[in-house]
């Protein structure tokens, strides 16, 4: 009970303080571009609780889930292949770096041509953008597996797929999950960006519409929705991570705090 209370206090403490500062700072503001906390909350309920939830939020979220899911699966898979072989790493690195540096807004028209303008294009955009943190972290994590562990595996005849499953993946897991954690918000951001093009519905589309229509409170409430989604996704992720990395947290928690 006390633990729960404390956790709640930690979760809410800083946000409440920040909102208070925000409230005070915007007391005298008159410009409609400056968001204020109280109208924002009112607007939030008015705008998002209702039809929009089904027409905009749910489709966006499912695209996000699919896109990041693909990104994670592909990132880990490709990361393993690339991380385990120096040759493949050298072969792919410049190409990866190139695509990583191309802004999605300019890639989208090409993808529109190649894939079309429906959901699969948006999912591809999300996957293409969110894959990099997972991919890079997987490569680095795989490269850095403990040499003694590797020797142990080898000497016990653990190789191929079994070695990946029993040694490489678990030992790289902390770093892979660090990558996944980075890729989730990128997925959300790309969910929005992908809806800025070839689009007629979705959370990002609505926010852009609000912005164009100067419906400033609605627009900010949309950004609030994004933040809340991000928060929820990250909480979900933490539960998963705690489970997968139970050993790692036990190992690290004891004494690092200093």
């Amino acid at each position: 009970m006390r633990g729960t209370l404390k956790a709640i206090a930690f979760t809410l403490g800083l946000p409440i303080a920040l909102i208070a500062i925000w409230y005070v700072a915007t007391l005298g503001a008159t410009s409609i571009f400056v968001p204020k906390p109280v109208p924002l909350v009112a607007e939030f309920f008015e705008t998002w609780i209702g039809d929009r939830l089904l027409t905009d939020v749910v489709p966006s979220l499912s695209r996000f889930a699919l896109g990041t899911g693909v990104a994670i699966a592909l990132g880990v898979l490709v990361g393993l292949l690339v991380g385990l072989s120096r040759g493949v790493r050298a072969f792919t690195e410049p190409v990866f770096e190139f695509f990583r540096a191309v802004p999605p807004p300019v890639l989208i028209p090409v993808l529109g041509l190649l894939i079309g303008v429906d959901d699969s294009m948006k999912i591809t955009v999300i996957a293409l953008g969110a894959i990099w943190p997972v991919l890079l972290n997987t490569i680095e994590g795989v490269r850095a597996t403990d040499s003694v562990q590797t020797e142990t595996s080898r000497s016990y005849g653990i190789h191929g797929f079994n070695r990946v499953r029993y040694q490489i993946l678990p030992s790289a897991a902390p770093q892979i999950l660090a990558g996944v954690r980075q890729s989730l918000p990128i997925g959300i951001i790309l969910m929005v960006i992908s809806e800025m093009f070839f689009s007629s519905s979705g959370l990002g589309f609505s926010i852009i519409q609000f912005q164009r229509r100067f419906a400033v409170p609605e627009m900010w409430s949309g950004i609030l929705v994004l933040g809340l989604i991000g928060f929820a996704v990250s909480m979900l992720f933490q539960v998963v991570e705690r489970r997968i990395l139970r050993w790692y947290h036990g190992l690290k928690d004891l004494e690092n705090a200093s």
Partner: protein
Amino acid sequence: SSGSPSGAPAESDPAASAPADGELTPITVGILTIAPSAAVQYGVDHGIFEEHGLDVTLQEAQGGAAMLPAVSTGQIDFGVGNPLSVLVAASQGVDMRVASGYSFSLAEGEDINAVVTRVGEGVESWSDLEGKKVSVNAVNTQGDLTIKGSVEMEGGDPGAVEFIEIAFPDALAQLDSGNVDAVWIPEPFLGAALAAPDKYSVVGYPNQNALPGLPTMVTFTSGQLAEEDPELVETWRGAISDVLEQVNADREGFGEAIASLTGMPEAAAMDLRLERLSGELDPQLLVDLSALAAKHGFVSTEPDLDTVIIP
């Protein structure tokens, strides 16, 4: 050699502050990087603004969304952009004023924007668009407004048209690949489509059809500036009218300005079909626009046009 890949100036040169007789008033003008805006560039290059006592700095923006807040806070003094955004902003309580006219779609003949479809698609009239996917560069702007207006005028159901946002440069490509059934495009893309009559056909000119002579761009400023410095607004109106008149008289010089602003090849810029440019604005056009926008729910309340349009 000098020049840039898009042909556009690498930096928007601030007007050379010529040692004119009188004091020049420095102002910042926001423009979009589209062909008609080149007129302002022309005015700067040919010293027309200086003659009116204005020292103009240009600021390029990629859309009204980025420009309007800057105008409202005074970081940009005058903006050149589409009137519907101004009306929408005003209806939301942003204190925006229309200072002058700028460009107008053609009231008759072949307009400079059109809805285009593939030959053999079976879309021949406005009402055929019902149940079809139509691309516009941005929804809730003049494109879909006038298309909806046109469909309704023909007795169709404007709600049954599905609009999708596709940037102008990508529109024809998407039409080709069958991802959309019709596209709304302006010049120079319209010219490209018309050049292939066996491939594309024009459904109609929505601007001309729904609101003949519709202003496609106006110049606007903030309420604060309009009230505090009406003389400046007056000077601006005079200057911009002068600029647009001179541009109309010098098609070749204007072509060069377009090529330099947008990066179009010069030959194409010369051949480009243009809107009607004029600083004069018939308030009735905005009244009609506002009414149509209200009818189709683009604005929830009609703005007070008596205040918005600076007399």
